[in-house]
């Protein structure tokens, strides 16, 4: 078997998702090549050559690939695809963008967001926001896969000695152009990247009261989330929503404050390592998934919790 891993990087360094993708490739077994497509990314290629378990790094360094436009990345991968049995990308904004395009151009199915490898053609993946796990088998000659970032431990970034091959393919599909980006320098971590999240629900009563959570979040280095009920009530914007129709998160610590635990919220956070629930209703469903439950008025308990963190 021969596997092509498409690296996630920012033209300066490889992203941790790349190491996770290589780990998934190792679980399948076979030769592993890594593609670095980007602009001014020669150093990323050299860095990727050190990743444990990689045979060859292919570097496509061209302005066409600098912003990972799906049309151009997909055309490039199709050019390189001959001979590979598996093509692997990450379940990230860019991987989710170009991987299905690659699969369709190859006339094969994609298996999205795999969380387990059973054999070279059989994989486990979450469906219904993780409320069920499907074991699926592909009948296609090339398996196109995206890998759930939290499902595999990344391989070591050092210890490998892959060869580096520079390729000179530069084909502009001419369909889209990058205009600008607005990558927020958040004072707090992104919800999907945070190791601690504190979320508020309808029990917060209004948007101003979310300030109670901010102080705790600052002390724990946490991101702030919300339930759909809190978003629907207009307390906070939609991009804070954790749940089946919002962001799916799995931090080390998830603190649910004034959240009853509707199914659609649980679907978005129940893979968190430790879950804390603070709610005055002892029958709230959130307590069924919580490791630590505190039946209390959040307006008393949260300031007390905050004070104890000093």
């Amino acid at each position, binding site marked *: 078997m021969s596997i092509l891993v498409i690296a996630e990087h920012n033209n300066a360094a490889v992203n941790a998702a790349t190491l996770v993708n290589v780990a998934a490739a190792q679980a399948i077994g076979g030769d592993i090549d890594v593609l670095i497509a980007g602009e001014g990314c020669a150093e990323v290629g050299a860095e990727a050559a050190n990743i444990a378990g990689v045979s060859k790094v292919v570097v496509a360094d061209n302005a066409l690939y600098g*912003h990972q436009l*799906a049309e151009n990345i997909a055309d490039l991968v199709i050019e390189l695809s001959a001979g590979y049995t598996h093509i692997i990308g990450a379940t990230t*904004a*860019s991987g989710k*963008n170009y991987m*299905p*395009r690659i*699969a*369709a151009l190859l006339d*094969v*199915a*994609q298996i*999205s967001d795999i969380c387990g490898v059973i054999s070279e053609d*059989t994989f486990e993946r979450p*469906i*219904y*926001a993780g409320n*069920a*796990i*499907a*074991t*699926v*088998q*592909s*009948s*296609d000659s090339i398996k196109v896969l995206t890998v759930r970032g939290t499902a595999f431990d990344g391989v070591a970034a050092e210890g490998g000695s892959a060869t580096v091959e520079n390729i000179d393919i530069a084909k502009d*599909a001419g*369909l*889209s152009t*990058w205009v600008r*980006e*607005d990558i*927020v320098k958040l004072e707090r971590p*992104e919800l*999907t*990247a945070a190791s*601690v999240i504190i979320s508020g629900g309808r029990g917060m009563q209004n948007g101003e009261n979310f300030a109670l959570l901010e102080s705790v979040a600052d002390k*724990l280095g946490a991101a702030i989330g919300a339930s759909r009920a809190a978003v629907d009530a207009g307390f906070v914007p*939609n*991009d804070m929503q954790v749940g*089946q*129709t*919002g962001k799916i998160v799995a931090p080390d*610590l998830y603190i649910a404050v004034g959240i009853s635990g509707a*199914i659609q919220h649980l679907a978005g956070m129940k893979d968190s*390592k*430790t*879950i*804390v629930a603070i709610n005055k209703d*002892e029958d709230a469903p959130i*307590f069924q*998934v919580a*490791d*630590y*439950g*505190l*039946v*209390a008025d959040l307006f008393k308990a949260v300031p007390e919790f905050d004070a*104890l*963190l000093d």
Partner: protein
Amino acid sequence: MKVLVTAKRVVDYNVSIRVLSDNSGVDLNNVKMSVNPFDEIAIEEAVRLKEAGKVEEVIVVSIGTSACGEQIRTALALGADRGILVETEEDMQPLAIAKVFKALIEKEQPKMVILGKQAIDGDNGQTGQMVAALSGLAQATFASEVVVNDDDTATVTREVDGGLEVISVKLPAIITTDLRLNEPRYASLPNIMKAKKKPVDTYSPEDLGVDVTPRVKTLKVTPPAERAAGIIVETVEELVDKLKNEAKVIS
């Protein structure tokens, strides 16, 4: 210009799904079905573009059994002008759905196809990108703002990891919706009544010359690992102590 939008029939987001005891799938008997929430956003966006005078006709497409007619009627009540039901009993996977769309694009010649970024049943997140690939069109996925320009392009703001990205795409283009694009309206009673009179065409995949044979076989479906039962703490002090010394998640 014409816009195609999607209305996938899925288990309602408020329903707690149950895995069948023979592990063959998820129990869909007597379960409330709705339009995929991300498709609702797609329908809303197309209707708003029509209200803004940028679009003349909004055509809603649903693919599946005859029951998908319900989701088409919902979309028509929300403001779509006519419907297309591609009726099949086959397990429709993203690649096959994308092939159906390719055929419909050739037939209808829309300037834009707006789809949900993913459906909340299979969570594949593939269809829009596959439609774009097969039709040789630009794609703008995870859109949080769509501006249609006068020069046959659209400027789309995309939700990416860590922020937003703005790209310009040539029309016709494929757009997939993210949560922040808009907040879908509710259908009014008069509009629900009016929707009953709007036209819906029905085709089979064969009519469209599309091979929809599944490429991926589901061997089994199992419930996820259960969480071990937790404990109720009595005080905030006890909670902080547990988090520091037992779970070791705060220092």
